[in-house]
């Protein structure tokens, strides 16, 4: 028996197990998936927890439920990938050999990367919302917070779900308005980028949004450290921003197992061909989802589009056929903007987010780069789609893996 080994049973790994289980010749191949955790987290739901819109039960389910029968699931931390020997070592030192390896170990926040972040203020007046612990702690803080300076801070790019900080700002504006204390809450966005909207078309359509919502911005801010005694963040060129409540998106990195295995770049992301999803170093290693270094967004929708293409390429690889250079960087993301409205963006490596309708020309029903109620319903429906279609590798009706220019206003 030959083995396909999948590292990580998050969005991408779970999806690949389901795809391959349907397509692979079971007389010749077996599939094993390894993950350290028992539970699967619907990470896009973390955004809504601080505002009381979702709770734990919306975002946590047992991983095993989504691993198909016939695929072996091992719950263990992965110690090291020994690519030269085609094997992986687990935390109890047991060794698993593979013929084809799929790395789907994702990315995570690493607060340790920022000096002072984990000092006195952590989870007292400094929070993240990229983890279940962070988002639930922030929910508890928000419950009786009377107001003050709320600073939403992005440490460095790339991060997973690059639109999440903006969504967090918009939801904060709405949440505190609804609570009747918006006048006591001063909201500031601190970013290393030059502006909140960095792509020309998005900037021209949405550029006014922060102003409209009375959200201040401090651009070009690269953090040096957090001074939690004096409640301020300090940049590398000595700019300072004071906060009463700091919500930060710390540095995002690939898992340490990538570093231990010598397979990653300076952020532990694995160098990967951006069209075939094959590792640049080893031809029998493929990489999917947030774990890659490709210049696509780190998003569940991206992992979904990659999944269909990677499945074909793995079949090509094991049948000695050439790989198809098919992945185009397609991403499709809803941007929740408060007041039960949302935007939608659909783009790829070559086409920036533009206006139009999606997935169908004219009739939509979703509108691109435009704030609508229907888009909001799309965002909320994503939870159902995620648990019931996406993880199980079932195609989403009407949405092919490649971006289409139909319905987009390109000029």
């Amino acid at each position, binding site marked *: 028996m030959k083995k396909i080994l999948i590292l990580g049973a998050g969005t991408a790994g779970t999806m690949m197990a389901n795809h391959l289980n349907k397509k692979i010749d079971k007389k010749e191949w077996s599939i094993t998936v390894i993950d350290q955790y028992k539970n699967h987290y619907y990470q896009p739901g973390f955004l809504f927890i601080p505002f009381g819109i979702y709770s734990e039960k919306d975002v946590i389910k047992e991983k095993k439920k989504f691993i198909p029968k016939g695929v072996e699931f091992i719950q263990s931390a992965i110690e090291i990938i020994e690519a030269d020997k085609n094997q992986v070592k687990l935390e109890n030192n047991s060794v698993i050999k593979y013929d084809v390896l799929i790395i789907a170990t994702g990315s995570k926040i690493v607060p340790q990367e920022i000096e002072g972040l984990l000092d006195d203020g952590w989870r007292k007046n400094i929070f993240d919302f990229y983890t279940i612990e962070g988002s639930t702690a922030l929910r508890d803080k928000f419950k009786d917070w009377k107001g003050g300076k709320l600073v939403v801070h992005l440490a*460095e*790019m*790339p991060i997973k779900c*690059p*639109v999440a900080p*903006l969504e967090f700002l918009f939801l904060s504006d709405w949440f505190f308005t609804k609570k009747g204390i918006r006048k006591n809450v001063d909201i500031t966005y601190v970013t*290393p*980028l*030059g502006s909140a*909207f*960095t*792509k*020309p078309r*998005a900037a021209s359509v*949405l550029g006014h949004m922060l102003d409209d919502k009375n959200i201040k911005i401090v*651009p*070009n801010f*690269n953090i040096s450290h957090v001074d939690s005694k004096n409640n301020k963040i300090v940049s*590398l*060129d000595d700019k300072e921003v004071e906060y009463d409540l700091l919500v930060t998106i710390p540095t995002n990195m690939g898992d340490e197992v990538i570093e231990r295995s010598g397979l990653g*770049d*300076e*952020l532990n992301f694995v*160098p990967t061909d*951006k069209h075939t999803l094959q590792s640049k170093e080893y031809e029998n290693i493929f990489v999917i989802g947030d774990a890659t*270094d*490709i*210049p696509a*967004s780190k998003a569940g929708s991206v992992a979904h589009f990659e999944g269909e293409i990677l499945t074909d390429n793995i079949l090509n690889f094991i049948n000695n056929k050439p790989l198809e250079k098919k992945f185009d960087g397609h*991403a499709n*993301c809803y*941007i929740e903007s408060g007041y039960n409205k949302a935007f939608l*963006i659909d*783009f790829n*490596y070559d086409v920036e*987010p533009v206006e139009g309708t999606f997935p169908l020309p004219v009739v939509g029903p979703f509108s691109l780069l435009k704030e609508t109620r229907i888009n909001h319903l799309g965002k909320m429906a994503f939870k159902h789609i995620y648990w019931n279609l996406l993880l199980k590798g079932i195609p989403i009706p009407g949405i092919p893996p490649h971006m289409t220019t139909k319905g987009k206003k390109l000029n």
Partner: protein
Amino acid sequence: MTEKMLADFTVNVNEEGYLTDPSQWNKEIAVALAKEVGIEELTEAHWKVIEFLQKEVKENGKLPTIRRINKVGGIPTKELYQLFPDGPLAKAAKIAGLSKPASCI
């Protein structure tokens, strides 16, 4: 997108003055772009950063992060800020004829 004269060359630039066609770039244009962002003279240290950015974009299809410029390019972050004050990545990218650091939106 508009056309613009830089150091006697006609180039295509976007709203913010970044070149939209990297093949139009040359060193004289770089000097002119540097002046636009307030850098009067490009020293050897500046060129080292510019060339690193161009090499990275060619090889990986994306701008390196400040962290990568430090770790892989060997240019300490403090020095990067001295060379290109305020927004070092945005400024160096502009001079190198590349697009600015951006998010997906």
